[in-house]
């Protein structure tokens, strides 16, 4: 299938002109500008083995971006193998039949290019940005690992990558003050059977358990052309690119049908109050999290608007009260995180020294109550949309960003250009919808996580309410552990799935 749309330059030009015109017309009162969404040029080509290719031409610089998305992430992991999708991603850089271990990075870099791979809950991507004359080399390398990875995978490399990934976990999680907070919140928000309840990086125990057989099985199940989408943007000739795609990827056989996890909607019946101590921290922090909706639910746009209403700039509601008027915090954030089949809304506050978490919680709750009680002004909602519009045009500046936008739309929505519909829906959000979703989703069923320096449980927000101390044992100060064991106001449980750092 092939479809050509007009050039990126003209499309972006039109969008910018229309938006600029609207902005000029605004003057004093703020109105809803009529926004034309830029349409990237697109050629879609489907190989007989089921692989989809999305090609987007732009000859303004001799640069290409190549990004392959495999529709597999930590969501697809088996129990006892958390972190495996990401560990597997590492193995993809350790050579295939015609590429030596470690050669991938040296070859791409010697061509003047950059590369990486990333894994999240829903997908794994591999990308290169290169001078445009290196297109065929990129396709040769990507197809070699898709076709022949298992010819070079071996126990020695798996063991090495396992240690490297453990070091990645130490760097990002275990050696950071309160670094385990995200995985504690996810484990509390989602039931243990929900694949969004465990962290992408995985636990040390599960990483230790990953076997060569796991690698082989994972590759055969998920790393086939029928589970892959390749996007190429930039200085390409679509006809020749299609020939090269057929040459290098065409011979790779289609993979098995994939059974995807069914993820039920999540609500929390009641508030969960958690405390986390860290001996390396000097000041407390606090987050509030609610389960929300996934990518295919229309309410995500209004939930995103709530996030911006609360924390876009200094006039936003939480910033204004917490950072500027009451000066209880140095910074605050609020966002709705949307995955393919689930999501959550989170508010985080970084307090000033000596500000009480209890008082901060009271202020956050009063701000939320005000949003729910309304009215939300049209101006407040409009200012959010202005940033999104100009941000979208700027966000399509680089070839790699365009490749990611097209891949995301195709893999999750079946429409590479779905970002246009998304922006239209974002622009259509009304103040009434903002108010409705705040009432509907940001209610009593939430996770409140107080993070305090070790031994400072007195700083936990509303310490007289029951809470669970979820501190991994290795990080707790002896005094705090002893106090927790006596259980005065503290309900200590062993429900946490957080592993201890391996030493």
């Amino acid at each position: 299938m092939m479809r050509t749309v007009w050039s990126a330059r003209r499309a972006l030009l039109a969008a910018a002109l229309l938006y600029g015109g609207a902005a000029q017309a605004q003057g004093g009162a703020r109105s809803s500008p009529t926004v034309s969404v830029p349409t990237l040029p697109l050629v879609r080509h489907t190989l007989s083995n089921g692989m989809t290719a999305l090609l987007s031409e732009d000859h303004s610089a001799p640069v290409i971006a190549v990004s392959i998305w495999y529709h597999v992430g930590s969501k697809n992991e088996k129990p006892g193998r958390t972190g495996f999708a990401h560990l597997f991603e590492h193995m993809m850089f350790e050579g295939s039949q015609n590429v030596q271990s470690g050669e991938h990075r040296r070859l791409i870099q010697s061509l003047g290019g950059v590369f990486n791979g990333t894994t999240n809950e829903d997908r794994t991507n591999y990308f290169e940005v290169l001078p445009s004359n290196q297109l065929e080399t990129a396709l040769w390398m990507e197809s070699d690992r898709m076709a022949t990875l298992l010819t070079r995978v071996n126990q020695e490399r798996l063991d090495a990558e396992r240690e490297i990934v453990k070091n990645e976990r130490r760097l990002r999680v275990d050696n950071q003050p309160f670094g385990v907070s995200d995985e504690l919140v996810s484990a509390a928000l989602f039931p243990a059977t929900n694949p969004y309840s465990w962290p992408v990086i995985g636990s040390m125990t599960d990483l230790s358990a990953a076997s060569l057989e796991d690698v082989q099985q994972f590759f055969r199940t998920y790393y086939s052309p029928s589970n892959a989408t390749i996007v190429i943007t930039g200085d390409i000739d679509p006809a020749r690119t299609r020939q090269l795609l057929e040459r290098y990827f065409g011979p790779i056989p289609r993979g098995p049908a994939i059974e995807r996890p069914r993820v039920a909607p999540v609500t929390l019946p009641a508030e969960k109050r958690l405390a986390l101590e860290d001996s390396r921290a000097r000041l407390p922090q606090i987050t509030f999290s609610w389960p929300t909706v996934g990518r295919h639910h229309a309410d995500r746009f209004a939930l995103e608007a709530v996030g911006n209403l609360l924390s876009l700039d200094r006039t936003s509601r939480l910033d204004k009260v917490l950072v500027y008027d009451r000066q209880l915090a140095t910074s605050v954030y609020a966002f709705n995180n949307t995955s393919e089949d689930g999501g959550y809304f989170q508010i985080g506050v970084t307090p000033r020294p000596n500000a009480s978490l209890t008082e901060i919680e009271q202020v956050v709750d009063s701000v939320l109550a005000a949003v729910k009680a309304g009215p939300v002004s049209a101006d407040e909602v409009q200012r959010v949309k202005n940033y999104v519009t100009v941000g979208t045009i700027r966000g399509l500046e680089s070839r790699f960003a365009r490749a990611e936008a097209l891949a995301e739309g195709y893999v999750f929505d079946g429409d590479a250009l779905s970002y246009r519909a998304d922006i239209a829906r974002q622009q259509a959000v009304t103040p009434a919808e903002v108010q409705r979703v705040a009432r509907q989703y940001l209610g009593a069923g939430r996770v409140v996580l107080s993070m305090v320096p070790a031994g400072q449980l007195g700083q936990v927000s509303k310490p007289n309410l029951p809470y669970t101390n979820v501190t991994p044992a290795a990080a707790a100060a002896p005094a705090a552990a002893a106090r927790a064991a006596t259980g005065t106001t503290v309900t200590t449980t062993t429900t946490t799935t957080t592993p201890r750092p391996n030493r």
Partner: protein
Amino acid sequence: MTRMTRTALFACAAAALLAVQPARAQTLDRSQRPVAPPAAPFRLPAVEMRTLRNGIPVAVIQNHTLPIVAVRAVIDAGPLLEPADRAGLANLVNGMLAEGTTTRTADQLAQAFADIGTQVTPSGFTTIDQNLDRALELMGDMLMHPAFPDPALARNKANTLANLRRLREQPGFLADRVFNSVLFGPDHPYARVATEQTVGAVTRADLVSFHSDWFRPQNVKLVVVGDITPADAAARLERVFGAWPAGGKTARYEVPAARPSAPTTIYLLDRPNSPQSTVRVGQVGPPRDTPDYYALETMNTVFGGLSGARLNSNLREAHAYTYGAGSGLVWRRPPQVSTFRGQSDIVAAKTDSAIIEWLREVRGIRGERAITDTELSFARNNRTAGLPLRFETVTQVAFAIADLLQNGIPTNFYDTYAQRIGALGAADLAGVATKYLDPQRSVIVVVGDRKVVEPGLRALGMPLVIVDENGNPVAS
């Protein structure tokens, strides 16, 4: 660990795969690597210089691909120019520029940014053509007419101090802090750090004075990139910045010499319960205008500048001590010296082993392990063939040119860049490594769990100094 083991496993795995999936063996011979056609022509961005009537130079780079424009201001008003007893002043001034002007409150500024959907900062912005004049006006107002209201200053001071406390939770911040202190000396400007005392002492009068001294045309350079002609850019900037009055002082960049180098010493900062050690290894390097610049950068590309370089290949790929290791040159505006600095986060139990390997790599790049032709072309090609990637978007170009202006480098720098890099040989790279890297006179900083790492570090036989967060020796 041996090559033989790998080959054996490779053969077994290949046999298994072929048995299961014969269809993957097709007529395509994947062992034949494609030969790339010649690179497409690439024209470096042409920098056209204009001058406003008050002397402010403007670098303009035309790019009419998209209807967008990026603007950057390079202003010589950094921390080097603040009094030592007011450390933190320059950053406070910078933050306070957006806290209101003589004609706009901070909230009015925020509303104006939202109206054009563009976060305008005193240092610049990228926006669509139609918003350019409005964004320039807001940027100019913040730079030239800040109000510095007292209540906002009190809030910024309090937040600055809170953030400093939080930064000390981060092992990376602590390692850099100690590194600069022990490398340059505790009283050197690069080791200066804002404290309760220095930030607490800052008054509105200090802000007004600092702004009046340094935010002057002779300390300002502007960069405009995108859908605009030089004449148009100059005219629009003249309307906003042409009225910036003369006066103040001219920034200078003489700083005291770093303290003399000493035999390689490990400085250990205890951070209990750290599963990794945050490590820095480095030395003082030459100023940015050294003729050795190209050789140094290219040598570093072989040594530690990329994930495919020696340092990462050793510490990560071969030994799995870390998620990553790298090195680089921190350049400053001449006549200031640079810093050659490597960094990695090492699993605690392997801290000593990693340092042994690290110093082995330093000796190697100096000549013990000759730079191969493959490594030489790896480094040269990365820098030359990769040039188009550095100039893909107008925002990238604006930052690249601003960086040249910031460091006092001529804007035609890239015209001869590929040629100079291409002329380098392996001997040139080893030569600068020998000249500037010395495993006998390096500084090694370790921020980690002392009870875990100290015995191994002691066994290395180098001087070991236990230090506090400021890099000062702790009596033990």
